[in-house]
């Protein structure tokens, strides 16, 4: 018993340590001092400042737009890629697998640099204009997340009974219908987790954004600022701006709610009772 208690003490101690920076930030989001460590009494001023900070709101908006669009594109490419590769011949499939693995193992900074080098070259020689824009940024983010969508869908394909597709054809589906009525519903859990992963990867990204961004989106003529690039620029000069502490608090609770929601949903869907419409 003592041993067990000791074990769990270790686990919770490490857990607590990992949360210290976040908790400190959250605590000091309810006071209006410049530096953490100074407590100036309870206040919600930082939250008001946050919503009044145009710069932060634009960055937040950009981040969400990019995350959403890139996740949709990545999911489309990753899912079609995984299905296509899975039903290809052995050798072609091995080639596809390796190609897909390339951006996974390749350090982000190498991907980013290689894209930049190519875009600069093409911009200088062929298009004769600066190519960096929302589109180059989107390409960067899709490269980051599509391979992971692929990897999330693949195990679902492996688990799927191969005769399901044939059964659908046998019962009168055209190949397209069999895909949408049987294959996609079967792969849905993998597609969804891939989509969520794509969103998180995009939200978190700094390097690729910093390399491939150009002007556009909510930033207008300026280079697109996302949360990552904005925060990076700020913390290079000094402490985290006070209003971003408030943002951290909001993000933390949103994430918490989402995580709790997912956990409850997963538990519920296991013992869900189905009803049926009747005439």
């Amino acid at each position, binding site marked *: 018993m003592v041993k067990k208690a000791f074990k769990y003490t270790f686990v919770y101690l490490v857990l607590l340590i990992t949360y210290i920076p976040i908790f*400190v930030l959250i605590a000091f989001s309810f006071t209006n001092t410049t530096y953490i460590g100074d407590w100036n009494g309870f206040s919600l001023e930082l939250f008001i400042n946050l919503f009044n900070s145009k710069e932060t709101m634009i960055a937040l908006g950009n981040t969400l737009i990019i995350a959403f669009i890139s996740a949709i594109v990545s999911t489309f490419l990753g899912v*079609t890629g995984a*299905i*296509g590769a899975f039903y290809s011949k052995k050798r072609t499939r091995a080639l596809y697998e390796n190609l897909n693995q390339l951006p996974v*193992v390749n350090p982000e900074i190498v991907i980013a640099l290689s894209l930049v080098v190519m875009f600069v070259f093409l911009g200088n020689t062929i298009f004769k204009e600066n190519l960096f824009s929302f589109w180059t940024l989107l390409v960067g983010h899709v490269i980051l997340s599509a391979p992971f969508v692929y990897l999330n869908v693949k*195990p679902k394909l492996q688990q799927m009974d191969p005769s399901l597709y044939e059964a659908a054809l046998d019962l009168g589906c055209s190949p397209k219908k069999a895909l949408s009525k049987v294959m996609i519903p079967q792969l849905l859990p993998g597609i969804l987790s891939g989509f969520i992963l794509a969103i998180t990867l995009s939200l978190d990204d700094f390097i690729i954004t910093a390399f491939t961004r150009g002007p556009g989106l909510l930033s207008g003529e300026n280079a697109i600022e996302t949360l990552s690039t904005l925060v990076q620029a700020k913390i290079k000069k000094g402490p985290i701006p006070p209003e971003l502490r408030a943002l951290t608090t909001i993000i933390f609770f949103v994430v918490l709610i989402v995580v709790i929601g997912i956990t409850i949903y997963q538990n519920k869907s296991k013992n869900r009772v189905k009803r049926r419409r009747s005439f």
Partner: protein
Amino acid sequence: MKFSLQRKQLCIPYFIFLILFVVIPILFILFYAFTDSAGNFSLYSLIAFFTSTNKINVLIQSLLFSVINTIICLLVGYPIAYILASSKAKFNYVVVMLFVMPMWINFVLRTGATRDVLTWIGLNGGQHPYIATFIGLFYNYLPFVILPLYSTMLKLDKAQIEAASDLGCNRFQVFTKSIFPQTIPGVVSAAQMVFMPTMSSYVIPETLSEGKIILFGNSIYLGFSNNQWNSASFMAIIMLAIVCISMLVTRNYTEKDQEGGSSRW
């Protein structure tokens, strides 16, 4: 035959995308790494890299940082994953989720927070760059270690462990002869999750050491911001080479795992 063909064709857009934006760009940096600014073939970048003690130092320092960080993360993460996976309590899954949850908060923000808190308690990066950087790296990569280790340990063959103790192993031997060998694929993929990203990390050393520690990622970033395409490309090629070597070294341990095909991150 017509219908099987249609499913195969689905992957065409994705693989055109991969060729255009992954393979061709790599060829571009290969080209830049071995040419000079005028576009002629040149080994200038290579010679410059290997004759500059500064750059070699950065390479060695990055490798050391990666190795040490990987070891620290594994030393802490392995027992945690083992404890959480060994008992059946449903709550343990929630604890794993709690370890992973910080990953959903913007990582630049988290890094900034770490630095501010360290500064508050007197461990500021300007005076203690190494400690601060290691703490930052550890914070960021611990979840990447726990996740693969936990999922490997959930799949441990209980019968094999029981067989080991039945055949006369004591608890320590059970661990070294049965449990640890079974978890090696998880350890390898956890190490892969930490090693290369540490080497190429930019934000963490930059922020936490206040610019005092330069890892490989930082020097590529520097090359990029100073428009030194050739030397930056050459360094990228070195990173790629290290990736390839580490993949080759760990290949035998991970293959089984990949066929299982459940790598999530």
